[in-house]
């Protein structure tokens, strides 16, 4: 595919680089230093708690503190280049310090979801084998079980209110300890983050250590980050993302985001930074642009965001469908939408067009949808400002090739559904210690996403469904999303999910699971309604009414669980 084969480049803004030949930084450590040099005493991160208590670190402070922690990791904890350091914490001021220190020390960052159970943590630790862990105290009670398989020699403990002024920090700790009762004594040997920083600082001064030297022999293609993925699909595996992957993707994404004023933006970071979307876009992207990031430790319930919106002039935010939908339903948000907001960007899951419309109605500003995977650092496509298309994931970011492949692996025609495949400098190096999984996902440099998509003549892409959820009815492809959309429009339906079940005559048949609003709804009603709107083979052959549907912890309906239930039922019969 040459540049001419990319119809989407016509929709790039005039200043957008179509091809990014070189990045501004060699490693992420260089990026952090450069931003500090440029923006020095400006605020870089502000942690804002639900009651408005807050703390701020400047670019200089972030740079100095992450230097000190890098020295601690290398000189005192004794870590080597390439050693893994796990990070398990919600958004807060410790997050950038810790993550940046790992990069500066030449180590590999392993993001761990703080909500994981100790078994889930244990699996991840056994796989990544980290030599150090930086964890927030609230979750430290899970450690004894989590480090049984792989003992972690260095444990650094931080707190939610770390680096806040003494008074609010003290109050937060008292509330956590005596009211929430979320602080438990930690029996394992550990060091507190401020002590680790002090030790690192002292060591640095005593031996005049040049932190830059830790990264001189790091190549851009060296792994910077092990990012775990696949929680809902079974085998959890880590994408190896290199310094170049992450820096490239950050620059690719920022090319697409027009109207950003360097050093002037205030970005709301309500999504967790341990997730690749906020990690690349908010933590790296907005930091490198000199923006002030408002970090929200926990956006649930949404009223936790109220003080942040009141106290800071938010100009930009990233979110997911659930967040945008939720905010537009909050009365305080409807009453006082953020008036300095320029636009918002959505990722992580499909943005429903009704949610996008409602958001624009409430805030007066668009929400731009992008698409990507952990394996692509993550951004592959994005809707350019002013040229968004509803229900579209937009156009590929610069230096990225995207196409839809048929069953035989060759590109399908315009508008035809095929598996979305992508190639570009942001595609991961592979899965950590899983060559078989890597071979299944990466073919000749193309990342097979497992998503079925279509491309229109302008190069805008639309996601049709997940490949593995597709139902094959007598040789016809049926995409559950389409049927579910149809069912959801029925006034008596609250929620619906569609899967394929084995069927003698047609190979597979469509089965719908419906959570009804009113109990009078019958299978015949549903089928009659579908017949009005869908071709015959798409109409569910059977309908099962239920009280609820299995969902992941992010609220996605788990079709795989429904399939498993069906198989179990059949086996039992």
């Amino acid at each position, binding site marked *: 595919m040459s540049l001419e084969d990319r119809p989407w480049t016509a929709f790039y803004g005039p200043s957008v680089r179509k091809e990014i030949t070189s990045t501004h930084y060699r490693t992420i450590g260089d990026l952090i230093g450069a931003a500090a040099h440029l923006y020095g005493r400006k605020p870089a991160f502000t942690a804002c*708690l639900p*009651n*408005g*208590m*807050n703390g701020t670190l400047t670019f200089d402070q972030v740079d100095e503190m992450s230097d000190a922690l890098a020295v601690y990791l290398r000189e005192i904890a004794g870590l080597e280049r390439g050693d893994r350091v796990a990070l398990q914490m919600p958004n807060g001021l410790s997050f950038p310090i810790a993550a940046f220190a790992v990069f500066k020390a030449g180590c590999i960052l392993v993001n761990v*979801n703080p*909500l994981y159970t100790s078994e889930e943590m244990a699996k991840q630790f056994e796989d990544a084998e980290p030599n150090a862990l930086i964890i927030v105290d609230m979750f430290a009670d899970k450690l004894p079980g989590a480090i049984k398989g792989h003992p972690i020699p260095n444990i650094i403990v931080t707190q939610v209110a770390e680096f*806040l*002024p003494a*008074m*609010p920090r003290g*109050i937060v700790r008292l509330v956590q300890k005596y009211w929430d009762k979320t602080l438990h004594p930690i029996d394992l040997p550990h060091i507190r983050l401020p002590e680790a920083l002090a030790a690192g600082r002292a060591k640095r001064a005593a031996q005049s250590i040049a932190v830059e030297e830790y990264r001189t022999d790091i190549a851009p293609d060296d792994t910077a980050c092990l990012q775990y993925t696949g929680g809902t699909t079974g085998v959890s595996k880590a994408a190896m993302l290199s310094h170049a992957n992450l820096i490239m993707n950050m620059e690719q994404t920022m090319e697409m985001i027009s109207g950003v004023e360097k050093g002037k933006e205030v970005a709301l970071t*309500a*999504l*967790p930074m341990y*997730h690749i*979307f*906020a990690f690349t876009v908010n933590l790296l992207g907005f930091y490198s642009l000199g923006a002030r990031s408002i970090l929200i430790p926990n*956006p*649930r*319930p*949404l*009223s936790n965001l109220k*003080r942040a919106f*009141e*106290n800071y002039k938010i100009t930009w935010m990233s*979110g*997911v469908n*659930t*967040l945008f939908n*939720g905010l537009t*339903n*909050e*009365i305080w948000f409807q*009453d*006082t939408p953020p008036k300095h907001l320029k636009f918002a960007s959505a990722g*992580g899951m499909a943005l429903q067009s009704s949610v996008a419309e409602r958001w624009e109605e409430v805030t007066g500003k668009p929400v731009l949808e992008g698409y990507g995977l952990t394996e692509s650092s993550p951004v592959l496509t994005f809707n350019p400002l002013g040229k968004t298309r509803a229900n579209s994931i937009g156009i590929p970011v610069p230096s990225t090739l995207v196409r839809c492949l048929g069953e035989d692996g060759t590109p399908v025609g315009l508008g035809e559904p095929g598996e979305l495949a992508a190639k570009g400098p942001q595609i991961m190096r592979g899965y950590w210690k899983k060559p078989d999984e890597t071979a299944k996902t990466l073919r000749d440099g193309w990342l097979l996403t497992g998503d079925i998509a279509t491309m229109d003549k302008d190069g805008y892409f639309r996601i049709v469904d997940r490949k593995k959820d597709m139902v094959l009815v007598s040789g016809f492809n049926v995409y559950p999303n389409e049927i579910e959309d149809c069912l959801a429009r029925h006034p008596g339906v609250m929620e619906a999910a569609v899967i394929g079940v084995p069927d003698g005559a047609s190979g597979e048949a469509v089965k719908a699971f419906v959570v009804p609003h009113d109990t009078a709804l019958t299978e015949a009603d549903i089928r009659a309604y579908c017949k009005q709107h869908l071709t015959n083979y798409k109409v569910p052959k059977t309908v099962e009414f239920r009280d609820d549907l299995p*969902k*992941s*912890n*992010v*609220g996605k309906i788990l079709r795989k669980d429904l399939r498993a239930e069906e198989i179990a039922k059949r086996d039992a019969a």
Partner: protein
Amino acid sequence: MVGPLEQAILALMIFVIMLGMGASLTPRDFVLALKRPYGLMIGVISQYGFMPLIGFLLAVSLPVPEPIKVGILIMACMPGGTTSNIFTYFSKGNLALSVLMTVTSTVFGVLLIPLVLVLYAGALDLDIPRENIIATLVLLLLPVAIGMVLRKLNANTGAVTEFMGSLLAVFFIVFLIVSWIPRNWGFLMETTWGTYFASIALGIVGITIGYLFARALRLHPRNARTVGLETGIQNGPLAIAIIAFTFAGTEAQSIMAVPVLYSLFIVIISTLVTLYFRRANTAAEQKMPDSLL
């Protein structure tokens, strides 16, 4: 009943509490409440329409002596009290609306209280002590304004002030109940059931009717909770002051029975209502998945 020292301590406590309440507010909250005066109007109607009527019906129907009837009527005609703001805060209501309602009903009270009393009590001629009205307003508005400025200057100072204010408010509520009972034990023993009934019913019926009225007029539950509490919670100390100004001797003592009893029970009732409102608020909150991603 309450000595000058205790009064000063109570006033100081209210001042600090309201400082904290103010620190939870922004000027935008007031602008919003003023932009939609609907809620405010409903509040005034509720306050001077329903409450005196409830009081009148209670006074007429209950087998209580004349001075008690007068006490019921006076209590029912009072404007909203500062405690309504505290309970609105804890009920996750609209605090700015609550403050505005208290201010409006207090200011209009100068005119409306005599008017309503003439309507229901005929020739009852009351002295409205203006100093008390002004003191109420100052004790409400000054700390709220300072609290808002504190928050504007530094969000952390604001948040800490709010935290301290709300802690003190909890203490204040407990203190009111705990200190009141032993102080008035003898009085509690002598009081007849009719007086008890009126003192309790005034608050419960007021909150309920205010809330239902606001809901019926399609106010958001947050604002309806505010109107309910504001309607039912009256300015007890003002009633006591008015009675002390107007009447004398044993007559004043008997008339005061209802305001004094009311002041105790309204704190208990409001605490229970607040707990209920908080649960309703949590139940109505949007359910977000465990993590957003």
